[in-house]
């Protein structure tokens, strides 16, 4: 099932939750919608599910207008951040719900329903919990049951809204891997919303980065990390150093200090220079594009994180390998291995 979204606009009062969004999701793909809160990613997901309606724009499933149908007819599996399990039903009945409410004409008989639920509980590896109630489960188990429940109706599309957002870090990591292998197994077109870049980059085939109701970049996890399309994407994904610079006459300046960096092809004016923390190479004073004084140093496993006051006024954090110990008070030169400059303040 492909999903096509065209020029979607949704306002809540004066706030534009979606401000002209175009998106095409390929059949069988696992797509991440990544963005800070308020970026419109959840609104987009809810509109695709039929739980919300756009002010204007189109949503099509396999070329068919989906907005003509309600949530009930769309055959979309939806997984909520807070599980939304039915408290008064056992795990088994929760999963069976979608099968039991089918119109009488197509409803399966009890034996078939039981077999199907059993199959789904096996798939999420929780068959031994069938008779428990949701309140007796851990968060991770609840979310897996919620997923099994959504899959029971054999959805054409699977939508997950911050599925691991309410879980602790360890469980979240486990479930990420599990979700990816599950998707590999069932291969249904899936979209999940997250504000956690690591989650998006690790799980998805493609990542859609959103901000303020607009799509900033669509690409593979490598694309969005290695070649961010906009200043927002560079700042949002990965640990970036962000420096306000001035481009004029072929020279890049930080404050009043010219930097020894090539300015070929850059538009003159106020710009932003981005460098990944681990792309700042430390050298002796006088070497490299920047110079600065180490303020203080903390060790994080394989790297040392140093706060450096640059001559030019800004203070940055860099991650350097520990082969050369840095100490507070050192003056060092810094050379960006890779950097990108985006026009605009």
């Amino acid at each position, binding site marked *: 099932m492909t999903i096509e979204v065209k020029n979607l606009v949704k306002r809540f009062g004066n706030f534009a939750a979606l401000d002209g969004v175009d998106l095409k999701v390929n059949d069988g793909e696992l797509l991440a919608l990544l963005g800070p809160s308020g970026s419109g990613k959840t609104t987009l997901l809810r509109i695709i599910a039929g739980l919300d309606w756009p002010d204007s724009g189109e949503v099509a499933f396999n070329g068919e207008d989906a907005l003509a149908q*309600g949530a*009930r007819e769309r055959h*979309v599996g939806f997984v909520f951040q807070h599980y*939304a399990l039915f408290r*008064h039903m056992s795990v088994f009945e929760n999963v069976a*719900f979608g099968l039991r409410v089918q119109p009488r004409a197509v409803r399966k008989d009890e034996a078939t329903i039981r077999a199907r639920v059993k199959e789904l509980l096996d798939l999420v590896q929780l068959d031994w919990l069938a008779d428990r*109630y949701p309140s007796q489960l851990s968060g991770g188990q609840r979310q897996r049951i919620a997923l099994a429940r*959504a899959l029971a109706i054999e959805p054409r599309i699977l939508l997950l809204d911050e599925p691991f957002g309410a879980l602790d870090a360890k469980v979240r990591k486990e479930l990420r891997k599990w979700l990816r292998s599950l998707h590999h197994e069932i291969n249904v077109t899936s979209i999940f919303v997250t504000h956690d870049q690591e989650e998006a980059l690790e799980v998805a085939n493609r990542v859609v980065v959103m901000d303020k109701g607009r799509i900033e970049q669509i690409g593979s996890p490598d694309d969005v990390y290695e070649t961010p399309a906009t200043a927002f994407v560079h700042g949002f994904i990965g640990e970036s150093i962000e420096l306000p610079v001035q481009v004029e006459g072929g020279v890049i300046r930080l404050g009043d200090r010219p930097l020894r960096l090539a300015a070929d092809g850059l538009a003159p004016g106020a710009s932003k220079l981005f460098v990944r923390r681990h792309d700042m190479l430390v050298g002796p004073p006088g070497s490299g594009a920047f110079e600065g004084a180490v303020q203080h140093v903390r060790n994080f496993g394989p790297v040392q994180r140093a706060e450096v006051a640059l001559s030019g006024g800004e203070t940055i954090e860099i991650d350097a390998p520990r082969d050369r110990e840095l100490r507070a008070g050192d003056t060092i030169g810094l050379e960006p291995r890779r950097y990108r400059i985006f026009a605009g303040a």
Partner: protein
Amino acid sequence: MGLTLTWLSVIILIPLAGLFLKSLELSPEQFWNILSSRRTLNALRVSFGLAFAAACVNLVMGSIIVWALVRYRFPGRRLFDAIVDVPFALPTAVAGVALTSLFAEKGWLGAPLAALGIKVAFTPLGIFVAMIFIGIPFVVRTVQPVLQDLDVEIEEAAGSLGASRWQTIVRVILPSLAPALLTGLALAFARAVGEYGSVIFIAGNLPNVSEIAPLLIVIRLSEFRYADATAIAVIMLVVSFVIIFAVNRLQRWAQNRIPVH
């Protein structure tokens, strides 16, 4: 602990024990005769029957009111929310007089109803109306917080799984509210059984027809037949206790299916 027990004893247990002791002044035969007299049986039937019917009406109407108050935003919502408490706060005699004048044959509501051939004031129907009036806040106030806690996501989940609106209400919402609904029913019922002030004004108080059990107790007391009065009181107590106990069991059963977090 000690304080709780002492207080409960002084306030509830000792008066109840006194009630039972007083009724022991009667021989079992006398006791039976009082109970099985036509007037007593009819009074009990009127009290319990109408109270139960009124509680059921309150259960349905109260649920609808709660739904509107919790789920919709409309002008005057807070005012309506406050109005629900009026039957709590109003002195029951005032409520009785107000209802009586409203439903009397010349009253605002009584006149059009009389034109339809329906007489409310001074009939069992009047008792029923008064009992509905005083019972409604109990249902609304017990169900309201539970419904507020019920996530809209639950309904969205049911809808996206293919449930119709009706299936969502019957299979998801009502079962989640069941314990609260039962509590509301029990409280409204208990209040209606014991209601005296508002009912006696509108009832007409015709023996065997529109005479409630609490009124019969008062009549016996005013005739200095204290033992008779306590006998009726004891039987009311026992019946009420059995009903409350049954509802309690039902409630616990419903709650066990929804283990608390």
